[in-house]
């Protein structure tokens, strides 16, 4: 299967072509030391536009896409 390059939180990541956000996230979490977080612990922006949770499984990614995965943090 063809693979494409995207960025997740500014770092290059390789996924299968036609992968959805859901599939890319599962692959990303599986490649990290941490266990998979549930979606209520983060929110997603694709190319600087908000993507609701309900659309993770139906939004296909393209080469060069920029995914931001943000989580709660302290703030002033």
């Amino acid at each position, binding site marked *: 299967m063809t693979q494409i390059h995207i960025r997740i939180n500014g770092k290059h990541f390789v996924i299968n072509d036609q992968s959805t956000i859901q599939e890319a996230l599962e692959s990303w*979490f599986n490649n990290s030391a941490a266990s998979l977080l549930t979606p209520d*612990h983060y*929110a997603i922006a694709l190319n600087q536009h908000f993507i609701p949770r309900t659309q993770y499984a139906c939004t296909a990614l393209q080469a060069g896409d920029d995914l931001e*995965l943000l989580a709660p943090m302290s703030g*002033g």
Partner: protein
Amino acid sequence: MVANNNDSVNDSVNDSVNDSVNDGLILYDQKFSSRLLVGTALYPSPDIMAQAISASGSGMITLSLRRQDPSNNQGQSIWQHIEQSGCALLPNTAGCHSAQEAITLAHMSQELFNTDFIKLEVIGDDYNLQPDPFETVKAAEILIKKGFKVLPYCTDDLVLCRRLLDVGCQVLMPWGSPIGTGKGLMNPYNLYAIRERFPTTSLIIDAGIGKPSQAMAAMEMGFDGILLNTAIAKAHNPILMARAFAQAVKGGRQGFLAGLMESRQTASPSTPTLGTPFWQQA
């Protein structure tokens, strides 16, 4: 019975006392018993943060969104403490430099924190973290139309404040001075002007407050609330400082409600002069 002068004075005093008891901070359709809002950053530890929030008595706390690093669960630890505080959440858009960035972050916060409140922060200059007035108004207008309850962090510019009200903001948060400086109320004239021009708008001093006395001064001027972070988090004893700010904000508010005396150039004796002893001996 005709009310005499004393009855009138007593009624006025009782009204002020009742105002003080029933007093609350109105943010859009919600009322908060505390007029102090605190941030959750820069504390020595999540545990001290939690104790300081509790000591502040605050009903609303600010927080942010940052990139998730799966190998570091520090954010999750802080999030657990924040959830346990029971406070309403006020997510911010800190770090955004354009309206589009702020709007995206607001939507992400809305989903994650399940709140329509957003502290709108669009920075225009990294030297003093001064908010960008043009992008702030642009973002506020769009977010208000989408149903957000926008609390815009802004400068003490009267016309900017008017523009933010024009696009539907019901709360304004002018700075006292730049974020993290602790310089207090840098421009009291401008702040008085904003207070006087918008007497019914909820006005919160956000940023720059370094001492409890500065928070009290703002409340005595008639501001409706104080939002701060660094002054508590960076104190030697954040928990004690949180308590100090809570008392200062409450005291300043009660002073405002009670009505401050007018200052004078010349001295005026407070002790009655009638019957002064030794009057003829000088």
